[in-house]
């Protein structure tokens, strides 16, 4: 079975994988179009409820599937939150020039679908005279050269809220906030109702409207179950502060790539971290503070 598991419409409804011989599986098969899911996948329970052994078998199954699909080894980690760590992020609005390098580094690192392209960071071009007024924001700006006269730039991604409305509304508990402050999605449990997208005040959640297309050559094989592992169609995804990197002590890809050093990241519980330095010495604000989502993502004017 080295056949790619991408479902092309012209392949028809051939039974390629083992199925439960039950009516339930038949219904499930019917509901996925042509039944491209195995019964293990169909019956997999919410990640939080899996035993250690079940987690191991889920990971083995996923790695096997990815290998079949992309023809290369993809590691799926389940690294838990580090003790004594809550991640915080700060973004310097006076430095950001709106080059969107973070946007593309993010897509590359996190295995987003390239066609259609899913982007977790949206950079807003705002008018200096208006300040942070979202009704005057333009995210499709495309000048010859940035920054544009009279404008400044505000990247927006998941704000890792302390009181995340997206978590509250999810009808099946497919998304939750981890101990290190990262809100994650179980892509194998999400039913794709998109209620969380309606609830998020920052447009941070993105839906796989079609089958995600990720060329094998572009796959980042170093993944995490809650982070950048390749996603199926019909589920929601979002920024996880590069959970696959940050839980290993690395910076998120956007922090690393930013040419102006606008992005600061670190452990809010560590007195000597850069993020704590920003909170101490700069005056920060949170986007849409009035909604009481209490982001761990701060904006500040460095100069």
């Amino acid at each position: 079975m080295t056949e790619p598991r991408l479902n092309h419409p012209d392949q028809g409804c051939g039974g390629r994988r083992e199925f439960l011989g039950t009516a339930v599986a038949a219904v499930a098969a019917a509901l996925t179009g042509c039944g491209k899911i195995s019964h293990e996948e169909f019956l997999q329970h919410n990640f939080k409820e899996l035993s250690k052994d079940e987690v191991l078998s889920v990971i083995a199954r996923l790695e096997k599937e990815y290998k079949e699909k992309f023809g290369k080894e993809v590691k799926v980690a389940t690294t838990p939150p580090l003790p004594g760590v809550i991640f915080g992020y700060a973004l310097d609005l006076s430095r950001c020039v709106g080059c969107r390098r973070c946007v593309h580094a993010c897509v590359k690192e996190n295995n987003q679908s390239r066609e259609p392209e899913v982007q977790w960071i949206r950079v807003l071009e705002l008018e200096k005279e208006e300040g942070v007024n979202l009704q005057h924001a333009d995210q499709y700006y495309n000048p010859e050269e940035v920054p544009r006269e009279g404008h400044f730039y505000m990247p927006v991604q998941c704000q890792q809220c302390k009181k995340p409305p997206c978590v509250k509304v999810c009808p099946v508990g497919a998304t939750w906030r981890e101990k290190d402050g990262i809100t994650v999605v179980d892509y194998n449990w999400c039913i794709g109702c998109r209620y969380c997208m309606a609830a998020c005040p920052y447009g941070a959640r993105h839906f796989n409207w079609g089958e995600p297309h990720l060329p094998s050559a572009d796959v980042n094989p170093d993944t995490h179950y809650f982070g950048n592992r390749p996603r199926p169609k019909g589920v929601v995804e979002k920024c996880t502060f590069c959970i696959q990197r940050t839980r290993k002590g690395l910076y998120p890809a956007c922090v690393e790539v930013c040419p102006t050093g606008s992005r600061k990241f670190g452990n809010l519980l560590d007195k000597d971290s850069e993020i704590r330095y920003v909170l101490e010495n700069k005056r920060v604000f949170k986007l849409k503070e009035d909604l009481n989502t209490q982001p761990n993502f701060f904006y500040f004017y460095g100069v």
Partner: protein
Amino acid sequence: MTSLRTFGQFITDTFRILATGSRYYYAWIGFLLLLIAIGGGAYLRQLNDGLIVTQMRDQVSWGFYIGNFTFLVGVAAAAIMLVIPAYIYDWEPIKEITILGEMLAIAALVMCLGFVMVDIGRPDRFWHIMPLVGRLNWPQSMLAWDVIVLNLYLLLNWFVVTYLLFCAYTERHYVKKLVLPLVLLSIPMAVSIHTVTAYLYNGLAARPFWNSAILAPRFLASAFCSGPAILLILLQVLRRTTKLSIKDEAIFKIAELMAYTMGFNLFLTAAEAFKELYSGTEHMVYFQYLLFGLKGHTTLVPFAWASILCGLAAFILFLVPKTRTNWVTLNLGCVLIYASVYIEKGMGLIIPGLTPDVLGDIYVYKPSYTEIAVAAGIFAIGFLVFTLMLKAAVPMMLGEFTLTRGRRAAEADPT
């Protein structure tokens, strides 16, 4: 044991009624099946390619499907419009038709669940949302609440309808002690399904257009206009095509009640519009998008005004006793109010709630062919369910088809 056998008989006899009918009956069923096939084909394509075949995108992540869902929850809830006066005030002429309201509720709920099912990205994971087997995020998530109340309401109505018909079939009088509490229970249940559905949107602080305290009252008020409008037309059709006797008095009484709810509905809408437009905060943009268009995008504007004008015209037609008791103007009013609420509770609620999006982006949403075809298929399923229920229920209610009489008649029938 015998009652079980009788029930089996009831079921087979019901199927026998359903299978026989006039040419028009077959044509109508055939037409509905055709629509269902078209919708089914479109849905298959959606299953294969994903929701990308709709026009929904990240900015406007809910659209036509959820709009129809919301509207139909209102229709389902409106059954109580007839049950309340019938049972609380013991008003006889309406009583006989409450069963019709309940059947309408069942059909509407079937469509509601259908619209939810086609809207989710992973229908193969529907079991995740089932209590006990899945993992329902209750009581936190309003959607979890909605799943529970909608299914309970469906079960309740289905039970009452089946029970009443079974009694009619076996020529027994129904046990009042059983039916009355259930019918009374359906009143708060109907209010709750619509309230919970309103709260679904209402609770989202991220969407100022929905985050208004009078959203739930507005839902109820508009449902009490559109639901009975369907019933009024239906009652007239049934009077003509069957031997069911429905008094003029009953119809006019419902129409009068509707006039009040329509007035109230208009008042609530005006209250909301005043608050937004007069205070003129940034939250006004959503109303602006709906009523006047924003930055040159005016897709919703004609619909919004059509809804308002239809609502006003219908209100006047229902308010004036002369037009209310004239069949032509009464039916015109029904159509107008139905159209008005359909626009308002469908696209007029969902789309401006999401446009501009949370970061100020304007994505102009219009349903795609697939969305319209799938929706037509679901409506056809609803109509089919309703037609079949009526087909079986009417002769039973009239006492024409019972355990003794119906069977003999059916057996005597050479076809």
